[in-house]
C-alpha cells in the first residue's frame, strides 16, 4: 500500500472512529463507515490539510469511497 493510502486510512479511522479493518478501498464513507454529510465535509478538509492539496467542491462530491480519496490525492500529487 502506498504512503498516501496509509495516511488516508489513518485519517478515516481517526475521524470516523471506525476499526482499521473496516477501512477497505471499496468502503463507502456514508454506507459502510457510518459517516453523515457533515462528516464527509470534515474528512475532505482533513485530507486537504494532511496532503496540502485543494479539493474543490465538485471533486469532493465525487469522493464516496476510500479508494476515491486515494486516487484523487495520488493524481493531484503526481501532477
Amino acid at each position: 500500500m502506498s504512503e498516501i493510502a496509509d495516511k488516508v486510512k489513518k485519517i478515516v479511522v481517526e475521524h470516523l472512529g471506525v476499526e482499521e479493518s473496516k477501512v477497505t478501498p471499496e468502503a463507502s464513507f456514508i454506507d459502510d463507515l457510518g459517516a453523515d454529510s457533515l462528516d464527509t465535509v470534515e474528512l475532505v478538509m482533513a485530507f486537504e490539510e494532511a496532503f496540502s492539496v485543494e479539493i474543490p467542491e465538485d471533486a469532493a462530491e465525487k469522493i464516496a469511497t476510500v479508494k476515491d480519496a486515494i486516487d484523487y490525492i495520488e493524481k493531484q500529487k503526481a501532477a
Partner: protein
Amino acid sequence: MGIVSPLGLGLEHNWSRLIAGESGIGRIASFDPSDLPAHVAGEVPAGPTEAGCLTLSDWVPVKDQKKMDRFIHLGLVAATEAVEDSGWKPESEEDRCRTGVMIGSGIGGLQTIYDASITVHEGRARRLSPFFIPSALINLVSGHVSIKYGFKGPNHSVVTACASGVHAIGDASRLIMLGDADVMVAGGAEAAVCPLGIAGFSSARALSTAFNAEPEKASRPWDRDRDGFVMGEGAGIVVLEEYEHAKARGAKIYGEIIGYGMSGDAYHITAPAEGHEGAYRAMQAAVRSAGIAVSDIGYVNAHGTSTMADDLELQAVERLFGDAASQVAMSSTKSAIGHLLGAAGAVEAIFSILAIRDNVAPPTLNLDNPSTESAIDRVAHEAQRRKIDIALSNSFGFGGTNASIIVRGV
C-alpha cells in the same frame, strides 16, 4: 434526575458530598489562569466513573465528542442519568411524540466560538469545521438528547443567562400543563470555564479575585468578605411527567412542581433593582401559582451568588416571608459548587427536591461573618436536619430576568 457538577458525577454522589459540606471549588486546572484576574472555578473532576468522576468516553462516543462543545457533553451526561433514572423508554411512536426536551444554557459553546474565531482570523476560514455551528448552538443539547432517545415531542431551549435552568424546568412544566407533552426532559447545561468566559465575567467585575490562594473560600454568599462569584460548570436535568401518566406506569416520583413565577426588573443590564423587587415579584408569583401560604415553605435555595446582590435577595425573601422569616431555612449551594450560570437553576431545583426527600437543608459554606443580620437561618457551614415539605428555588439573570420555582414532596 441527573447531575454533573464540580462535586462530581451523579445525583446521590453530588448530594452526599453537598450535605457533608464538601467543596468542588479549586484552582482552574483546564488551562493556566495566571494571566487572568480570577484563578478559581468549579470544574467537573475528570477520572473514573466509579469514583464519581467524569470519563467522557463512557457517555459520548469519542468520534462524536468533537462535534459538540463541552456544555453539550455535560448536558448529555446529566440527561442520560436522568432518563435512565426515570425508567421512561417510550416504545410507541405516539409515546415518543408525547415526550419533549427543553434544556437551556446561559452562554453555550464559548470555547468552540473562540477556537473557530482564531481559525478564521488566521485566514483559514475554509478549514472551519462543519460542526462549528451545531457545536456552539444552545438548543443542541435538546437536539442531541432527542436524537439519542427518539423523543419527538416539543424540542425547545431557554436562554435567560443565569435563570435559564429554572426557566427551562418551569416552562417545560407549563407545556405539560397545556397538554403539549406528557413527559419533558428539562434543565440546563453550562461549560464556560474557559479563558474567554473567565476574562469576560472578570471585566464585568463579577468574579471573586481575593481568594485565588484559597479557592475553597472564594464562594461565600452573604459573608462580609465576599468579593464576587466563582464560576462553575456542569448540568442538571430532570424528567418531568404529567402526574397521572407517571402514576399509571409506577414511576419513581421525587416530587411535584407546584409553583412557578417569573418577572423582569426593567432596571439595569447586570444589577438588580433596589430591594430586589423583581425577585420579590417572581417569588410572589410562584407562591400565588402554588396556592400555598409562604409559611408552608420550609427551605429556600437562594440565588446567592457571593456578590453584593446577596443582601438584596435576602431583603426580598424577608419581605416575602414577613413574620414567618424565622421559621424558614435558606442556603446557597453555590458556596460548594460555584455559579453554574445557565445550569445553576436546574441543579439547585434538584437540590431543593432532595432537601425535601431527606428533610435536610444543605449548608452555606464560608458564611463566617454575615454582612447583614437576619431572622432567616442561612444554614452556615453545616447541613441542618429539619422538616421540609415545600421548597422554593430562585434564579436571577443578567438583563434583569427572575425566576422562582416551588417544589413539594409526593
